């Protein structure tokens, strides 16, 4: 295969769809370090990118990989890396730097069993909280969790666009099942894919502020070599990018970092909600577990049991308001996760004591099956 097979229908792997999604989004630069179960992303791009004159490099580790794509992005390239648990841990340093310096990039973390080397070839959803809070200090986080191969493609394109729009790293987090499964995928036609190009300022050179405060909290970003000369530092900085410790400037920077996300939750929020209004039990899930939830819902429907499903596609920022509005009146919410309980705390936070929030944990490296969900639903009903 060469390039994106626009308009064609093919049997495609999740990781392959991520790589092709990156090409569809116009990726200019990839830097990575091999790790199961994400390696296919790097391998496919290693094959595809030189053919179209785009830059690809295997760095010496994951710290170097994310550092390189930050440099690449600042120099005007649409940049991405891909990794899994152990590499994701190493990338936290660079992730925080990119949040602080407001550099767009896409980080793909295909989740495997942890902690540490854990279960390299098997599925887990243990990085959900690390994706939110893994790097030190308060910081924004945008995290998308696909549940099928088509979404691997679509959400990769979306991740690039959101990164540009919000000038921040966007994390795409398929779990291992989604990264490695193969499904039929009909690719869109080229003209159907919307790609937001890297921004560029139009002000005179001497007026340019690298962190201009706009209504959205995000301003067009110049790139190194464009003639706009600016400074970038991970130190807390003023609107020109120079280090500051002035209280008002520090507070303004930190508020803007937070508010550029919280003021535009409508753009980021993306949920799949099925039959939640009129049901006996809600299954709250994401990633591969959503597939099992859909299957379980069908099985239970035959037994006249009404099951609703709430699935955040954007898991961070968490859909607080919608969850509160739709789920706080429910009797039982089942939260199946491939970990020992992470997102469940968010659901608990947003619901009253009268709502029973019931966990279902699986962390043995295998997926949660529809049968398991059926049994769990019958038990909580």
């Amino acid at each position, binding site marked *: 295969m*060469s390039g994106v097979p626009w308009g064609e229908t093919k049997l495609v792997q999740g990781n392959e769809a991520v790589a092709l999604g990156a090409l569809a989004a116009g990726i*200019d*630069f990839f*830097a990575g370090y091999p790790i199961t179960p994400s390696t296919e992303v790097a391998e496919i791009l290693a094959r595809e990118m*030189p*053919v179209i*004159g785009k*830059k690809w*490099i295997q*760095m*010496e*580790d994951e*710290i*170097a*990989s994310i*550092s*390189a*794509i*930050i*440099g*690449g*992005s*600042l*120099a*005007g*390239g649409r*940049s991405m890396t891909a990794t899994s648990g152990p590499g994701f841990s190493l990338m936290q*340093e*660079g992730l925080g*730097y990119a949040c602080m310096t407001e550099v767009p990039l896409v980080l793909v973390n295909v989740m495997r069993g942890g902690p540490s080397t854990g279960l390299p070839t098997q599925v887990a959803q243990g990085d959900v909280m690390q994706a939110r809070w893994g790097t030190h200090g308060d910081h924004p986080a945008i995290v998308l969790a696909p549940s099928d191969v088509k979404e691997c493609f679509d959400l990769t394109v979306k991740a690039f666009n959101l990164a540009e729009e919000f000038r921040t790293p966007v994390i795409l987090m398929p779990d291992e099942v989604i990264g490695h499964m193969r499904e039929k995928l009909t690719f869109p036609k080229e003209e159907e894919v919307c790609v937001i190009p890297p921004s560029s300022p139009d002000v005179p050179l001497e007026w340019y502020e690298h962190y201009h405060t706009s209504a959205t909290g995000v301003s067009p970003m110049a*790139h*190194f*070599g*464009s*003639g706009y*000369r*600016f*400074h*970038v*530092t*991970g*130190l807390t900085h003023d609107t020109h990018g*120079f*280090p500051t410790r002035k209280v008002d400037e520090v507070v303004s920077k930190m508020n803007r970092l937070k508010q550029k996300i919280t003021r535009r939750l409508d753009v980021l929020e993306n949920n799949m909600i099925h039959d939640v209004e009129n049901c006996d039990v809600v299954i709250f899930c994401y990633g591969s577990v959503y597939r099992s939830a859909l299957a379980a819902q069908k099985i239970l429907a035959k037994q006249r049991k009404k099951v609703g499903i709430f699935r955040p596609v954007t898991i961070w920022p968490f859909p607080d308001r919608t969850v509160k509005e739709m789920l706080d009146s429910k009797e039982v919410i089942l939260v199946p996760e491939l970990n020992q309980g992470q997102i469940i705390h968010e659901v608990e936070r947003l619901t009253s004591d009268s709502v029973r929030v019931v966990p279902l944990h699986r962390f043995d490296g295998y997926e949660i099956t529809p049968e398991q969900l059926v049994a769990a639903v019958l038990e909580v009903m």
Partner: protein
Amino acid sequence: MPARLPYAYKYLRAKKKFPHVWCPGCGIGIVMGSIIRAIDSLGWDLDDILMVSGIGCTSRMPVYVDFNTLHTTHGRALAFGTGAKMANPKLKVLAVMGDGDSMAIGGNHIIHASRRNMDITAIIVNNNNYGMTGGQFSPTTPQGAKTSTTPYGMIEPDFDICKLTEAAGANFVARGDVYHVIELDGMIKKALSGSGFRVVEALAPCPTNFGRANRQGDAVNMMELLKDNTINIAQASKLSKEKTEGKTVRGIFVDRDEIGYLERYEELCDRVLSEVKK
């Protein structure tokens, strides 16, 4: 107007960012002067230059110069620089790092930047300790020296920055110091003039920490130590071993013309493209 001032206004963020953070007598500012003079003599356009650094006293340099400037995380200057260079090969990338930055936390990155012959010029200010954090030992602290974390003397052997980068494959490797500053200007100019990975180690005093801990006197004394304890490679070759014993050799040790990474990558793209067309 004194002759120095045009440099100040052309190359420094003179009105905005001074006074600087460096202590009186620190050697880092002299290295910054050398870099600016070298760039001036090359006539480079400021818009084309990217100065990238890590974290440390040395790595504060980018804030003062009016290029494209990128102050990154501790040890990672070369990784950020690699990405910037690949995304925009027109950038002339200059990485400024401390001895701790480049040899300890960034040791892996410099080995691989050397091996790849990545098209970056690395200027390493070697002050034999971690200046910024208050004078702890670094991989270039000489055996026996006192620092705040070697109160009884350094027991670990030290790294030779030049030998290490030469062995790892750098195209150009030189060592100068801030006393022999005209020589240093020339080395940096030569480093900036070629392709591939290019290293200049600049020995510089940190009177505040290393100097004080090792009773090396004030900044002037420390400059005199550089004068007395270093020797140019050409002079050294004429003297007997005993006469050069204990002296640090300055000079250009490696000046190869191996093909740099970016050119190799372009060749790869051309090759695969012609294969695909077939």
